[in-house]
């Protein structure tokens, strides 16, 4: 195998010592009450985060996550050469308005819930290419802003089927650069848009599982590895429904995912937290990756982790016009470096 950055059409290898120098997470109260709550940098007591709209609350969370990431990386905004951020709202307003207050060069991203790893992969490649010294990447979602945008206003009180998911309220951010501390980013596999014809916007786990399976298999094939190369593989937000489908799909392809495979959307909440099939949203993978997984890679609980963030690329208009839901998944591999 060669050592060029381009392993294949979809997989990149990072040859520099690119690290996640610091990461930060801010969430709402339901997430803070979940099993990973203790690992979050900032948990707001209510979904308004003391603001007067949910949209402003979401921005505040992204801002807090960015602050925490910079602080842990021992850097300031002036050290950051580019910010890569995205969210679920029209024209990615959370990212744009957050960056307005940061005085940073911004590249806005939209990959729906795959934005976390899209941003991390691009951040690492910009550092690898020498265009930036330090990149800041982050994303956010908010249950109430997402409900308003994609489904029904919360006041409407529409019922949801049990296979629906619960958009995570929170934000995650990280600082990427060449350094000597923090987990190393080794590879990224960029996903292709996959559409299996699912039209139900409540059933995103089923819609997204094939995209995740495609990216994971491509990653294994390109690097000639098997699932047990990693001691943790997570998908972003497939929920219970998509989790089971993905495991079956990979088993059929000859990859046994248990016991290494988990889903961020199922890790954030307890079983009794009434979130239907599990968490979803940009923040699902970002919050888990930039808290629990970073901590695990620093403490030695995990040695190698593959995060595959899954995104459903539909809009309220495309859904109302009866279009099916195109999906995507981006994977980023990280490993612990012994000091």
């Amino acid at each position, binding site marked *: 195998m060669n050592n060029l950055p381009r392993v294949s059409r979809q997989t990149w290898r990072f040859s520099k010592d690119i690290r996640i120098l610091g990461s930060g997470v801010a969430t709402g109260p339901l997430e803070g009450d979940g099993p990973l709550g203790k690992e979050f940098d900032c948990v707001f007591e209510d979904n308004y985060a003391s603001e007067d709209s949910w949209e402003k609350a979401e921005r505040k969370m992204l801002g807090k996550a960015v602050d925490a990431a910079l602080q842990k990386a021992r850097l300031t905004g002036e050290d950051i050469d580019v910010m890569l951020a995205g969210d679920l709202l029209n024209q990615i307003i959370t990212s744009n308005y957050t960056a307005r207050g940061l005085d940073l060069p911004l590249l806005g991203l939209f990959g729906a819930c795959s934005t976390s790893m899209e941003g991390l992969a691009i951040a690492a490649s910009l550092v690898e290419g020498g265009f930036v010294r330090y990149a800041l990447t982050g994303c956010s979602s908010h249950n109430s802003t997402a409900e*308003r945008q994609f489904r029904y206003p*919360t006041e409407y009180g529409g*019922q949801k089927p049990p296979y629906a998911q619960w958009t995570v309220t929170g934000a995650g951010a990280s600082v990427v650069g060449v350094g000597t501390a923090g987990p190393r980013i080794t590879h990224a596999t960029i996903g292709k848009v996959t559409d299996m014809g699912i*039209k139900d916007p409540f059933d995103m786990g089923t819609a997204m599982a094939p995209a995740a399976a495609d990216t994971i298999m491509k990653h294994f094939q390109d690097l000639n590895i098997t699932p047990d190369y990693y001691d943790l593989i997570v998908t972003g937000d497939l929920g219970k429904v998509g989790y089971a489908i993905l495991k079956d799909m990979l088993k059929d392809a000859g990859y046994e995912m248990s016991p290494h495979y988990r889903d961020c959307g199922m890790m954030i909440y307890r079983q009794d937290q009434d979130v239907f099939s599990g968490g979803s949203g940009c923040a699902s993978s970002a919050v888990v990756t930039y808290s629990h997984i970073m901590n695990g890679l620093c403490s030695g609980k995990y040695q190698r982790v593959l995060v595959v963030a899954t995104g459903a690329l539909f809009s309220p208009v495309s859904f109302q016009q009866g279009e099916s839901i195109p999906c995507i998944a981006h994977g980023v591999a990280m490993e612990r470096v012994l000091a």
Partner: protein
Amino acid sequence: MSEYFIAFLVGGFICLIGQLMLDLTKMTPAHVMSTLVVAGVVMDGLGLYDPLIDFAGAGATVPITSFGHALYHGAWAEAEKNGLIGIITGIFEVPSAGISSAIVFGFLGALVFKPKG
């Protein structure tokens, strides 16, 4: 006492139909609501809804199907008086109390609470 029971059963049965439409089909809440309204219109057109109200009282007047019943009644009464144009002018005559109070109380609610979330 038995009229309470009958109202509960009939009203509950209409809601059960709505719940089954939500659970067993891909219909959205808006689809279910419109379908029940149209069902009320059709039932009233066939002369079935008034006997149902006589039988079940609030069990038939509270669910959304009675909105269809009211639409039909208003349209029919005006049509009898003024011909075809009456269907248009009369359609909201009976339900106008419901529609107007929804707007007025919605407005009052919005003054007290936070309508934009």
